[in-house]
């Protein structure tokens, strides 16, 4: 069973990944070149996707831990 600390740790990692994705998105919006779009989708999108999935995963484990 996961402890509260482990759950918090997962959410923190998810948060860091999402923030990194958001920072990449922000930089790509400012840096207006064709490669910026590719970086935004490929790297920023990947970070955000990973962060969101990890966050949702932590929610599911939280529910399982309660049961």
């Amino acid at each position: 069973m996961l402890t509260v600390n482990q759950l918090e740790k997962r959410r923190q990692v998810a948060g860091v990944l999402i923030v990194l994705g958001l920072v990449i998105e922000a930089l790509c919006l400012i840096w207006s070149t064709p490669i910026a779009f590719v970086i935004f989708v490929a790297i920023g999108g990947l970070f955000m996707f990973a962060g969101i999935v990890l966050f949702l995963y932590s929610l599911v484990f939280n529910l399982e831990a309660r049961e």
Partner: protein
Amino acid sequence: MLHATTLILSLILFSAVVIGVLIARPAITATRGGKILAFVAMFCLPIFCGLLGVSREMGRSKSTAFCLSCHTMEDYGKSLYVDDPTHIPASHFQNHRVPPDEACYSCHTSYAMFGGLKVKLYGLKHVAVYYLGTPPAPENIKLYEPYNNRECLHCHLGAKSFEEGATHNADPATLPAIKSNQLSCISSGCHDVAHDLAHLKDAKFWKAGT
């Protein structure tokens, strides 16, 4: 457009700050309100920001400046300023027959179902070739497929100058042939001067705004 970017950046900053608070103080999520905040900040807001960003980037990729930002496209950009009414891209750009800030996209998109998506994929291919491959010399760049009259007719169909033009009606078979894409608008002897890069160095240029 600048305001749109500023708004998206503000939303990104706001999301990052809220997520930052949740990272620094994870105990907040112990309460019901904290859980809702975490869900909004770490699921809803990033997805919303991402969608807005993609939409903004898609809009930006239609701009003339975006297309001409690659060195390979410089001469094509110059050709828009050729002071010659028979030079089709230049006359369209200079007379605002296409939006000047979306000049390339207006003529080089495909006005068919998923045409916009198709040209965006071509664009990604161009980016890959530009950064990872060997870009061809500007004069060697060719269209993926013969230019379709559909793109011209998207604007010109029904226009008086097109429907009642003397050359278009000299032969009764001409107009139906153009409309059915049997006779290309850019056929030899018709509107055949597109981006004439070969003669660019001898061309006279329009000085916009002077």
